[in-house]
């Protein structure tokens, strides 16, 4: 025999108001909020590390600044997101200067100098070099020598900060 609810129950219109219990959610949000406030930095991330390489670690404490972006990954040398030379070619060549990189750098330098003349935007010759941590020294030196000879003497190496 099927269950027949009592007369009173038949007329009851279910629970009045569905209340969501938010206490645990609030707890979680508070913890996340506190954590994020703690790691928050007002400067934000001005420089995006490239995804094709692993930067070396260092105990340096200076914050990176925005400058012309030169990435030396395992295979390519990339200037402002445009590949300019192959690392393998650089390794093979005997010259200290990388011609294709120099050409591109001089283009950027000329543009920046024009900007300086027209709008007074100062050109400091700053360049940020992102190199893979396994890069041999000879490639690094060639890249830096090229930068120095192409009006970019103000070089900075981008590294991961190691908490010491």
């Amino acid at each position, binding site marked *: 025999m099927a269950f027949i609810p009592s007369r009173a129950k038949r007329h009851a219109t279910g629970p009045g108001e569905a209340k969501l219990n938010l206490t645990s959610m609030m707890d979680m949000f508070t913890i996340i909020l506190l954590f994020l406030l703690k790691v928050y930095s007002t400067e934000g*991330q001005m420089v995006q590390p490239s995804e094709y390489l692993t930067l070396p670690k260092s105990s340096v404490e200076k914050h990176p600044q925005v400058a012309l972006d030169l990435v030396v990954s395992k295979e390519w040398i990339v200037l402002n997101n445009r590949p300019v030379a192959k690392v393998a070619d650089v390794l093979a060549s005997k010259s200290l200067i990388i011609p294709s990189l120099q050409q591109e750098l001089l283009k950027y330098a000329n543009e920046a100098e024009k900007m300086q003349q027209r709008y007074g935007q100062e050109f400091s010759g700053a360049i940020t070099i992102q190199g893979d941590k396994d890069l041999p020294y000879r490639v690094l030196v060639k890249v830096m020598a090229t930068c120095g000879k192409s009006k970019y003497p103000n070089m900075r190496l981008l590294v991961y900060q190691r908490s010491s």
Partner: protein
Amino acid sequence: MAFRPSQRSRRPKENAEPNLTPVMNLMVVLIPLLLTSAEFIKLGMIEINLPPAARGARVAQAQMPKETEKKLNLTVTITDEGFYLASSMAVALGESGEGPTIPKKPNGEYDFQKLNELLYKIKKQAAGVFKDSDQIIIVAEPEIDYQTVVFTMDAARSYKTDQGPVALFPKVSLSATVM
């Protein structure tokens, strides 16, 4: 006579619950905002110091300008066997009298700790005597990897004493070997 509420009131007490909606709104806005601007990996920047006279013209050749003052010209050379230290005064010898000044550890790692200590000793003697007592030139063999060079720069930058870190040779120049 003071007012007294009726004792006959049969209404059950509503349980007082704070209205969390505005707090929730705040959280929903703040958490994505902070998440996007959070810096989980901290980046740093090493400035490479070029000798002033060689700026732009001669990079990575460590050509010091001609000056009559006493120059230290401290140079660390990274080789496969370890570090060689040299200055305009003398070449620092290893404990055995030959080979690298600071050989690699037995497990094949570079001994950055020892380099750091030795540079601290040199700094104590050189400070004030030489004009370039905050400069160091780093030379490496062509096959040394970038990370080792960066660690060497770290070892040359500061030394941790009980009173806090002491700056050693923060102005780094890189020099090329024969390619």
